[in-house]
């Protein structure tokens, strides 16, 4: 807490949240105002009622959830991130991007910090003749092409057919696409709901990934030889993609009160308290998933008497229950990392028990034999 008269901070900012785990609060006025301010700090840095409901979204009936509840990525043991460059017009543009360097310089520090949460793997590809499913509208005033906000949901499906499935692994995939519009549709801008062009020219879809449109300037001489050579500015592109990554994971807060100033986390992409919040949310979600799985298994056994539970399946169930209990106790003690590990083990054990093929071996065996 600081006394009210410190001139070193700009006016109008009363709370400064640091990048590790501390915050500076300016004290001024009454104790009640201070209490309200402290509550706001706790809500920003830690959890609110709606974020608890969002983490437990599996177990909470739909009516109690806010509409933003299911936006963040589901907790998983690993994620695959794929960067794709879409070039629908290779005759006019030869696009090159130094994706390997950009991944090492910008993306790797963030993923290293997030490696506590899950395993990440990154790859990239270039797709040619891949078009967006929507024809953009020509706007005479700005002499450019416009993609309006209500046509954006139709863009993703046709593109997804070309992206390819990740056949070799079971983790969910996050796709980040960079689209270089065709020469006949350049420049292309994305418009938000109010009709203003979006400054970053990008949008993201929760639980799927993000798309950014990269406009190429028309050449100065109209007779320049085709194809034009384009070198993508990876810094600009990676800024947008990393911001979208934060939004997909739910790290960025949308409702920060106006008096707050958050310190920029720098190269690592996220502050320590944000990482703690993510770990906490994933732990709670894992515990909810495990309890749903084991409850379903118990209900199934009540209904169908023929299911055989072998010894190894039983030991997995016991292990899952023990891990969940240890995760809950660790959470109440505040040991976040241990709780997260325990919850991960609980999820693995419960999935292995529920999906074991030996459960169905004697399912259709007649009762009288």
């Amino acid at each position, binding site marked *: 807490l600081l006394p009210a008269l410190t001139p070193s901070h700009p006016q109008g900012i009363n709370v400064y949240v640091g990048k590790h785990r501390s915050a500076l609060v300016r004290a001024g006025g009454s104790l009640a105002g201070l209490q309200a301010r402290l509550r706001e700090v706790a809500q920003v840095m830690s959890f609110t009622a709606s974020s608890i409901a969002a983490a437990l979204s599996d177990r909470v009936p739909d009516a109690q959830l806010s509409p933003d509840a299911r936006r963040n990525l589901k907790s998983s043991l690993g994620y695959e991130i794929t960067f794709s460059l879409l070039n629908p017009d290779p005759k006019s543009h030869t696009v090159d991007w130094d994706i390997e360097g950009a991944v090492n310089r910008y993306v790797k520090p963030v993923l290293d910090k997030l490696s506590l949460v899950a395993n990440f793997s990154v790859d990239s590809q*270039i797709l040619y003749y891949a078009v967006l499913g929507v024809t953009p509208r020509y706007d005479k005033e700005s002499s450019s092409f416009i993609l309006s906000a209500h046509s954006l949901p139709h863009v993703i499906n046709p593109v997804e057919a*070309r992206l390819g499935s990740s056949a*070799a692994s079971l983790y969910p995939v996050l796709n980040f696409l960079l689209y270089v519009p065709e020469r006949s549709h350049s420049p292309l801008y994305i418009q938000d709901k109010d009709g203003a062009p979006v400054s970053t020219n990008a949008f993201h879809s929760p639980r799927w990934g993000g798309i950014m449109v990269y406009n190429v300037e028309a050449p100065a001489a109209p007779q320049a030889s085709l194809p034009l050579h384009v070198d993508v500015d990876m810094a600009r592109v990676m800024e947008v993609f990393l911001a979208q990554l934060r939004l997909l994971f739910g790290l960025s807060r949308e409702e920060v009160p106006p008096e707050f100033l958050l310190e920029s986390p720098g190269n690592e992409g996220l502050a320590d308290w944000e990482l703690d919040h993510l770990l906490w949310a994933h732990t709670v979600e894992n515990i909810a998933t495990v309890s749903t799985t084991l409850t379903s298994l118990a209900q199934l056994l009540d209904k169908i008497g023929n299911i055989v539970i072998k010894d190894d399946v039983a030991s997995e169930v016991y292990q899952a229950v023990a891990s969940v209990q240890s995760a809950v106790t660790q959470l109440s003690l505040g040991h976040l990392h241990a709780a997260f590990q325990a919850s991960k083990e609980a999820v693995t054990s419960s999935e292995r028990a529920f999906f074991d093929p030996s459960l169905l071996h004697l399912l259709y065996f007649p009762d009288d034999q």
Partner: protein
Amino acid sequence: GPGRADAGRERRDALREELLLSPLPTGDVAATFQFRTRWDADLQRGAVSHYRLFPKALGRLVAALGVRELHLALTQGFWRTRYWGQPPLQAPAGAELWVWFQPTVTDVDKAWKELSNILSGIFCASLNFIDSTNTVTPTASFKPLGLANGTDHHLLRYAVLPREVVCTENLTPWKKLLPCGSKAGLAVLLKAERLFHSSYHSQAVHIRPICRDASCLAVSWELRQTLTVVFDFFSSGQGKKDWSLFKMFSRTLTDTCPLASQSKVYVDISPKNKENELLEVSPPPTSVHEAIVQGDKKTYAVYDLLSPSLFNTSRSLNVQLKWKRPQDSSEMPIPTLHAQRYVGGYGLQTGEICTLIYNTHPYRAFPVILLETVPWYLRLYVHTLTIITKGKENKPSYIHYQPAQDRRRPHLLEMLIQLPANSVTKITIQFERALLKWTEYPPDPNHGFYVGSSVLSALVPSVTAMKDMDVEQSPLFTSLFPSSDGSSYFVRLYTEPLLVNLPTPDFSMPYNVICLTCTVVAVCYGSFYNLLTRTFHVEEPSRGGLAKRLANVIRKFRGVPPL
């Protein structure tokens, strides 16, 4: 036209596309496409990989499962070697998959199962039916075609599914793997409605490691996608021997793929006899290429799609082939090595598999490796194996036989047989048909059970000396017609698949039994019960109840006689 603006840039991958049109002796025409992507990178396990021309789906598969070489072919139809000549690249009917794994893979069977399941998803083919009952480990055939550091044959797996059908839904994912898709370059000709209206259709994917340069210090990966189709003279050609790209594919070539560094069309215009040419091509080709292919000197007219002069006169290229004079049917050349296989015997208990191998070379003898994979339900008796050439017994110099285990493993028979010059070799082996359990029959059991094609691999000596061709200069010819030294060329032939009937139970019997039993019970029991319990009573006629008296009153009023 489009310029090569990236000429100054160092690229680590390159795409070459080629099309070979060869008219066949019977008036049909064969078209072979080859799309070759070469990537100067090493696909390691776990390393981050950034793909450009090489498709990500296959690259991740190779890296994750430790695959060294992968060959997958899906074929519909049969190449008639006797009438069409030696095939450029043959594949057996159905689906064939053979894979060499890296020595670092510890559990090859597990990796094989995962690989076949993932490929089944990528190509929409039922390759997930590949399991231990149709997988074998050949010891002598199927040596690696790429770089190899020692060949432990336990890292090789081979499986063939003869019943697999190829259709449009297999062609679409195959086309999706090409960098330009089917939007530009030679792939615009690949339209399903014409490609499947043909006598023979075969599409294949081959992945292998190759030397990066002559010193072979580094490894590059090569992906070859090939498609061979034979258009029938009668159904597609409408009885006329004039072929053109438009007539075959209902499309013409309009532009090149901007990502291809080479894009060529070759037309086989070799004269059949020495005097004059048989075939006239229009528009005039950009160049003429001569090569010795499979022991014959052949001439090819080459259209280089990247040369600017080609699209000057017209926007599209429609290669037309016209026959200058009618062809005699007596001019059909006979291939040096061809084979036939059939099932002999009668009844549903025993039978015999006969393979006939013809060596028509006038004075040279050469050995051939025969690989037979027979399913476990045809129990082979190896003591009845006889090989007869020119009336005398011919003992093979190498035999590898692995007997089958019921429901677990098929029979594997590999032999190295010396074929004398100008001879016919007959190989026969007897088998007994097994009785399967009633749940093991497929949905249409009276169709029969397929036995996969047998494979013949040989180095056929050629009449004319061949010179080594550089892989980079003409990748099509080195891959279609490989030759390690100038005096012989490598041929792999497949025989016909066999269709064998097993003793099949009558599946309508449960229904018949139920009907008969119910009828007998109903008739017998019913009449017996009737006989035993039916008694006769005398019944007094009753005076009639109230309803009858009321009805009589009404009838009296109407004047009708009473009841």
